[in-house]
């Protein structure tokens, strides 16, 4: 039984199938970090199932040397939910995209989130339909020109984090595809969380939506356009770490820490268990390229809640029903009320 003692490496989680994503696609980095996180977590390949829907991101299961299901468009979550309910001891991961999870799979998404099965959802959001070659998605920006919006998108975009919190999410996080190490740590936290974990990844599509996240990745700008959430730490950002967020009543405002009238003690301290504040953070959704002031886009863990999982509650009911022993086939066939004919 040496293999139970030997920790696996990312290589052990690499399947024999060559990834077929475009060069420069953010999916490559996500795959690498996922495999590393699985190795770091000490998971075994036979106890992991990666489930996906349809889209570029949903090809991911083929490249991980675990069990995997590449299902149908939008509907990885019910497959994963059924699997987890039947086999609670498995580590179940879901790879999905903005179109898959939020458009065609929107109904499954909100209901899975509220039921809180112990799944880890990796939602690769590239704000475009890639596999069908460049149509706008539910997270595309207003005015974005695509092959199906030649005059610009008129659909108001979905806010994944706000939707997830609104649906009763118990682990809600966002990362950038380029933040490899950070992503890996978030994946590990997501896996350790008992309940549905949502990790939204801003993922660049170099072919159909290149630069969608440049305002948050550009070397010159990112310190001012993004903020990294750390539990128990004040909300501070900026190139010189000289900007902070404080609450003015119910309104978050950016303050200049160089201003002598501003005290660090007044800053918003991030509490990942504070549901109300997590909701406010989810609304930090401004476009830095739009006119006027904007709040920085948060990355990291917005919210964590310890709540019972669907499969635990279901299993508990089954165990309760069986506290005096499991029913036999004879009892099942006989039912409650019988009569005998001689």
């Amino acid at each position, binding site marked *: 039984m040496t293999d139970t003692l030997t920790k696996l490496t990312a290589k052990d989680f690499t399947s024999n199938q060559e990834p077929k994503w475009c060069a420069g696609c953010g999916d490559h980095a996500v795959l690498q970090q996922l495999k590393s996180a699985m190795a770091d977590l000490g998971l075994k390949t036979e106890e992991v199932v990666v489930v996906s829907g349809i889209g570029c991101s949903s090809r991911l299961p083929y490249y991980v040397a675990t069990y995997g*299901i590449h299902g149908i468009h939008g509907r990885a979550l019910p*497959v994963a939910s059924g699997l987890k309910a039947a086999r609670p001891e498995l580590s179940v991961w879901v790879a999905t995209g903005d179109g898959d999870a939020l458009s065609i799979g929107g109904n499954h998404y909100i209901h899975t989130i509220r039921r809180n099965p112990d799944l880890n959802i990796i939602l690769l959001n590239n704000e475009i339909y890639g596999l069908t070659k460049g149509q706008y998605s539910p997270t595309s920006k207003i005015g974005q020109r695509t092959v199906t919006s030649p005059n610009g998108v008129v659909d108001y975009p979905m806010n994944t984090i706000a939707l997830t919190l609104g649906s009763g999410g118990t682990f809600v996080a966002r990362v950038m595809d380029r933040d490899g190490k950070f992503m890996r740590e978030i994946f590990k936290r997501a896996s350790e969380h008992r309940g549905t974990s949502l990790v939204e990844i801003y993922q660049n599509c170099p072919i159909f939506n290149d630069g969608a996240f440049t305002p948050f990745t550009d070397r010159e700008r990112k310190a001012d356009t993004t903020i990294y959430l750390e539990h128990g730490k004040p909300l501070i950002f900026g190139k010189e770490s000289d900007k902070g967020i404080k609450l003015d009543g119910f309104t978050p405002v950016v303050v200049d820490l160089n201003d002598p009238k501003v005290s660090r003690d007044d800053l918003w301290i991030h509490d990942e268990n504070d549901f109300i504040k997590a909701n406010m953070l989810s609304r930090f959704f401004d476009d830095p390229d739009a006119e006027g002031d904007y709040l920085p886009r948060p990355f990291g863990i917005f919210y964590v809640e310890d709540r019972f999982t669907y499969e635990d509650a279901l299993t508990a009911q*089954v165990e309760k029903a069986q506290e005096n022993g*499991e029913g036999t*086939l004879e009892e099942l066939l006989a039912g409650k009320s019988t009569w005998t004919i001689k």
Partner: protein
Amino acid sequence: MTDTTTTNKGVNVTPKTSVTVLFAGDSGDGMQLTGTQFANTVAVYGSDINTFPNFPSEIRAPAGTISGVSGFQMQFGSQSVYTPGAKFDVLIAMNAAALKANLNKLHHGGIIIADSDGFDGKNLRLSGYGEGNNPLEDGTVADYTVFSVPVVSLTRKALADTGLSVKNIDRCKNMFILGILYWLYSLPIDTTITTLQTKFKNKADIADANIKAVTAGYNFGDETEMFAQFGRFSVAPAGKQPGTYRRVTGNEAAAIGLAAAAKKAGLKLFLGSYPITPATEILQTLSNLKKWGVKTFQAEDEIAGVLSSIGASYGGAMAATSTSGPGLALKSEALGLAVIMEIPLVVVNVQRGGPSTGLPTKPEQSDLFISMYGRHGEAPMPIISAHSPVDCFYAAYEAAKLSVEHMTPVICLTDGYLAFSSEPMLIPSPAELSGIKPVFAKERAADDAPYLPYKRNEMGVRDWAVPGTKGLEHRIGGLEKANETGNVSHDPANHALMTKLRAEKVEKIADCIPLQTIDNGTEKGDLLVLGWGSTYGAIKIAVDRAIKAGHSVSHAHVRYLNPFPKNLGTMLGNYKKVLIPENNCGQLLMMIRDRYLIEPIAFNKVEGLPFNEMEIEAKITDIVKEL
């Protein structure tokens, strides 16, 4: 103790071989409960029975109106009973609307037991007879035997000293009328008393009141001149096979069949489903079977229902989903996934009138085509149909067996008629149920050759490789698979091969299912009546009568609709004509014509109602006259 065992002094008792009764009243009058009580009693007494509830689609339609009438129909007899009956011998009418809605189906000269208190001015107006036009008095029912009994008044009188409120007393009126019926059919009231004591074990006053009412009704029959003059009936025991019985509806039977199959196979049952009429009771029944390890998942929609089951099946559970037409349509894409993943899954589809929302509470057999052809791509699935409420148990059991042993999704077709009908089920012993052997792949060592998830056995069946098993890690899904390795493949020749292999796997099931048998009649002859599903009872009776009338008519009922039994084509060739009665526009007929190149005679009924035996008998008579 009550004196129900003493036979009425000198009253004439007429034996009957079969009786059809309809209990009809307002949806709040407890007609389902009353009917169920009567059914349980006659069953325990040894009669064969078949029951069918007829309730409004609205939960609480306006009281006193025709649309608010709820009915419970049953046929019981001293010989085998195959249907709840076409026309009634007895109509229990708790109010004017109940009479108006059902009088046309009462046999000429049949018995009406009417609660005359339900024929007051208001009830007459709401029923549409019109105030002042009491059908019990104006000659409307002159052709029938009418017992007009002021049931509400008599119940109040009988229960006056119970201290219960008038409202609670009035709720016992159904028991009073049940007591009369027990008297009329020479049946004991003990079964009902026992049931009432159990049902209201924490409400002794309610139990006592109900028992008083049923006893008072019985005694009313015993003591009243009009009943004494008319006499009583008796129905001898049916001489059913000795054994222990339970009464099941088709939906209950299907649910138990799935759970039993899982137990027999050593698997856990998982049902992912979404409530839909008339299939919901399958989900309800299974949600109560946690003691047997059954897990039910009430999904957000039909699609999630089937997909959760696909996930559970991948995980090694015996997985099923229950639905009706509109839900089956929504599940089509997912069923294609199950076909290409080649994993076990049972879909119990309880057919109802369509298309679209159609007739949700009414039966039809119009989902055969969607079951057979309703998926994109080449996606064959085995189809099994149930022909009676009890057979829903065996059909679901067998669907699960085929599904697990052949690694394929299977559709089990029942319908709203079977789903809600009930009949006695001889409880099988576990040993009598055929064994179910899942084809699990075994753990592999690191130095073994790579696992091939799509390698097949001689039946064309791949292994079930369940997560958690070392060395079987594999990725499968909706994209076309390379033969054996299961890797994604767009190779043209491979797609052609895999399409063929999937089809052959389903075709080979014909080697494992029983040959088609003749249910009744000779193996060669003038006319074969070929049915499937819930038309069984009506065809059975009609063919029986035709044979007795000297005609050369046989009956075969097809259970396996895909693949067909291997001998079906030969069998059809043994008759001059083949008649196919169906509650659709000829779906089995087209499949038969397509497969065997014969031209059967169609007989179709799409009224949201099952066939009755008279219709089929008349059709048979017409055909044999021409031969």
